[in-house]
C-alpha cells in the first residue's frame, strides 16, 4: 500500500454498489467487473467515508467484531490494500484530495 498510514479512505465515486443481504456488491462501470464483499468487507465499506483512516476503521472493527486491536488493524489494512488494488477505494489527504 503506497498511502501513508494516517491517510483517510474514500469509496471510488465512480462505482455502483448496493448492500444485499449480508454482502455488498460493487460494479465498476468502466470495466464491468463485479466485486462482492463479505460481512467484514461490507462493514468496512459502510464506514469508509473519506474521513476515517485505517487505524480508525480498525477501531470500529475491533469494537463490532470483538477482536483484538492488532488483529483488527491487520485485517483492515489487508482489506484496504486489496480494495485499493481493485480501485474500489482511494486514499485522500488531509486536505481532501486523493493522496499518492
Amino acid at each position: 500500500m503506497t498511502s501513508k498510514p494516517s491517510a483517510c479512505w474514500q469509496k471510488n465515486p465512480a462505482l455502483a454498489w448496493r448492500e444485499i443481504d449480508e454482502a455488498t456488491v460493487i460494479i465498476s462501470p468502466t470495466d464491468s467487473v463485479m466485486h462482492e464483499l463479505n460481512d467484514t468487507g461490507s462493514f468496512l465499506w459502510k464506514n469508509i467515508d473519506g474521513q476515517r483512516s485505517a487505524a480508525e476503521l480498525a477501531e470500529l472493527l475491533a469494537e463490532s467484531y470483538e477482536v483484538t486491536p492488532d488483529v483488527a488493524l491487520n485485517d483492515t489494512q489487508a482489506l484496504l490494500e486489496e480494495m485499493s488494488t481493485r480501485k474500489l477505494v482511494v486514499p485522500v489527504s488531509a486536505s481532501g484530495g486523493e493522496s499518492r
Partner: protein
Amino acid sequence: MSTSAAAGATPVMDRLISRTVLRHQPLSVHFDLTYRCNERCVHCYLDHEDHGELTTAECLAVMKELASAGTLFLTFSGGEIFLRPDLYEILAEARRLHFDLSLKTNALLVTEERAARLREYGVRRVQISVYSDIPEVHDAITKVPGSLQRTLAAIPLLLEQGLQVKLACPLMRENLLAYRGVMALAEKLGVPYVLDLTITPMMDGNEAPLAHRIPVSSLLPVMQDPTLHACKPQPTAEATRARQEFPAAIGSAVSSGIENAAYEDLPCSAGHNSCYISPYGDVFPCVQLPQAAGNLRRERFSDIWYHAPQLERLRGIRESQLPVCSRCEIRSYCERCPGLALMEGGDLLGAYERACELAEQKAQLAGVVTPISALHREQAAFAMQTNSRNEIASFVANSSSD
C-alpha cells in the same frame, strides 16, 4: 472478496440473483421515463402521447425509494429518453444513489457532448435499436428518413467514451432477411447484439403490432441458420470481451435474460427480483405484463412491491403447477412468458399459441419426432371428442327418424 464480470452468468451474479429472488428484493428495475418518441416504429406497443409523466421531483423520489429497497440495476428507457429535458438531472441523482445504470435509446439525439455526459454520470451500458444495416429497411420501420445513418453515427461517440454499446434488433416481417446485416454490423463495430422475436400487442391490448409479427413457419430458416445458432458469430477480441459480459442470445420474454437455478421453477424474474415502472408511476411486474400493482403517486414503492396482491399472486406461480404447460412434453423448448400468456391467451397461467408453435418448431429442429405441445394435444383430443359426440348424436337422430 470475490470478483467476476458483471451482468453475465457469473458466481457473484448467481449469488446475487439467488439472494434477491429468495428475499423478493427488487434487484433490477426498468423505468420508462417517457413514452414520447422521435420515431414511429411500426411494431411499437406504446401510446406516444404524454398523459402526465412523472415530474423531475417525482422521478428523483422514486429513485430514492428504489435505492432504499435495494435496487442495483436500473435501466432507463422509453419512448426516447433524450426527449426528457431533465434527463441529466435524473442521471445525476441515479449516480448519487449508486445505481448500475443502463439506457435504451434510438440514439438519434446522441452527440459527442451528450455521450460524454453519459459517461460523466456513470452510465455503463447503452442498448440501441437497429433494425437493419440497410437504410431503406431501417427507416421504413422507424418512419424517420435518415434515422439509420444518425443512429449509426452515434455509436462511435458512445464507444469513444468507454460506454458499452449493444445492438438490439427486433425481428418482424419488414426486416426478417436483414438480421445477417445487423450481425455483420455488430461484428464490425465490435459490439454484442441481440435479435428479438418478441412483437407484443400494445399495452392497452390493441393487437395492431401483431400484424408485423413473423409467422412461426417463416422463422424456420432463421432458426436453422448455423451462423445464428446460439448467436455465436466469430467476433473480434473486443467483441469477445464484451460478449462475455453480455451473453448474446435470441431474445426471449424472460426479463433478466440470465439463467439461474433460483429461477428454476419460476416463470421468470418478474415480480420476484425485477419490475417495471411506467412514465406515469404505475408499477408493473414487467413491461410485458400490463397488470399495474400500484401507482407511485399514491403509494410508496415498498408498499406496492411487498404488499400488492397482484405481485403476491405472481410470486406464488410455479411452472410445475401450471394447468396445461406443466403436462407439456416439450416444455424444455418453450420460452413461455406469463405476460404474453395473459395478453394473447387471456390467462396468466395458461398456454398460448405463439409459445406452443415456437416450442414445437424448436423441438423439431432439435430432433424430437412430431413434437406436440400440451395445448395442441388437448385441443386435438377435444376436437376428436366433439366429433365423436356429433357423430353419435347424428346417428341417434337418424335412427329416431327411421
